[in-house]
């Protein structure tokens, strides 16, 4: 699984960084998503999928 993030769509709510801080962070500047691990390790895949579902703006995709 690979995560794609669109920072133009992101509103910086922080749901992803709250859910799986190992995979998602937020930029210091504008709070938008920063992908720490675009390909999450197997044990974090489920959390990463949940973060994609929780994202309020639709900025995240699991492909």
């Amino acid at each position, binding site marked *: 699984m690979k995560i794609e993030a669109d920072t133009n769509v992101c*509103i*910086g*709510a*922080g*749901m992803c*960084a*709250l*859910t799986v*801080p190992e995979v998602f*962070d*937020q*930029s*210091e*500047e*504008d*709070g*938008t998503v920063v992908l720490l691990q675009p390909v999450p390790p197997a044990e974090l895949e489920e959390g990463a999928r*949940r973060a994609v*579902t*929780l994202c*309020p*703006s*639709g900025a995240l995709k699991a492909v």
Partner: protein
Amino acid sequence: MTDLTLTTRRERPFDPPETYARLRERGDVHRMRYADGHEGWLVTGYAAARAVLADQRFSNRPELAHPPLAARADLAEEIRSQEFEVPPGFFLRTDAPEHTRYRKLLTGQFTVRRMKQLEARIEEITEARLDEMEASGGPVDLVDAFALPIPSLVICELLGVPYEERAAFQEDTKILVSLDARASDALAAIGRVFTYLYGLVSRKREHPGEDLLSGLIEGGELTDDELTGVAFLLLVAGHETTANMLGLGTYALLADPAQLTALRDDPSLIGNAVEELMRHLTIIHVGPVRTALEDVEIDGHLIRKGESVTLHLPVINRDPSRFPGGDRLDVTRPATGHLGFGHGIHQCLGQQLARAEMRIGFAALLRRFPGLRLAVPADEVPLRADMAIYGVHRLPVTW
């Protein structure tokens, strides 16, 4: 023509009105008559609610919205009729791309990491309130002694609003969220708070500090009018929301000894308990309201351009297809994904701050007073059915 209208009157303090809970059993989307006679919609189901909130063909502009509630009809009429414009900087009630510009300037200030850095200060503020409560001895009104001052002190400090000047906006904030306030009184209250904040912005321009407003001024992207609108939004949103969750949440825990014990026995549940209290209590009980900018189909219903859609979040957050047994408070249930902070581009900017305040606040309160209990019979706690944000007016407690 439908008979369905919106009311905030409840049968029980923690449960949404039965009419709408029963309605949810029949479907996600329903015809509803608005206070101005408009035939619009009411959403009671989780999937449809997410679809509406994520769809930018629905506008959040107040001058397009019909009033779902009779109590606010005169204000809505005022906003729809005259040459109303959303004050610059009050970006909650704007759509993209205006909204995007303001939100991006602010999100960096409210990230998960930033809020973590604030935790020590929130703990200090919380412990100081608890010291004062303990010193005064019970019974005390928990709203006045704890639930309101904590978020109020935190947002004032974060924004750079002198807490000792709170008389200039706290009473007016109450008028703003009162469903019984007349339109003229509400507009006058808005005017007074704007005047105060405009003055504050000018003072900050002269004498900047280490706060969010000073930072925005220094950034140089916003005019004083815009800064005033932003400050107004953050100040009001930072006050009435977390305060009511702390008050109503404590009442709900005291009313459910099994859940209270579960949380006391395992303090590591606090993060989850906060999500569950947000879900189960959902204090946003009027709207949000969105208006279709073009024809949109939601859950098989054709919502026509110009029609308003009201989301009943307390009912939506108990949709059994998403939260089985949702009428029960259960601090161990996976409750994330609730719509208590909204969804879509307007999802609460301050949610990570609110989470930190609630985690710290509930945990410290239970730790400090192992014998915390109501100081009046449970049915005598005055409920905020008359306010735009639900909660308790007062919560007399002792220990």
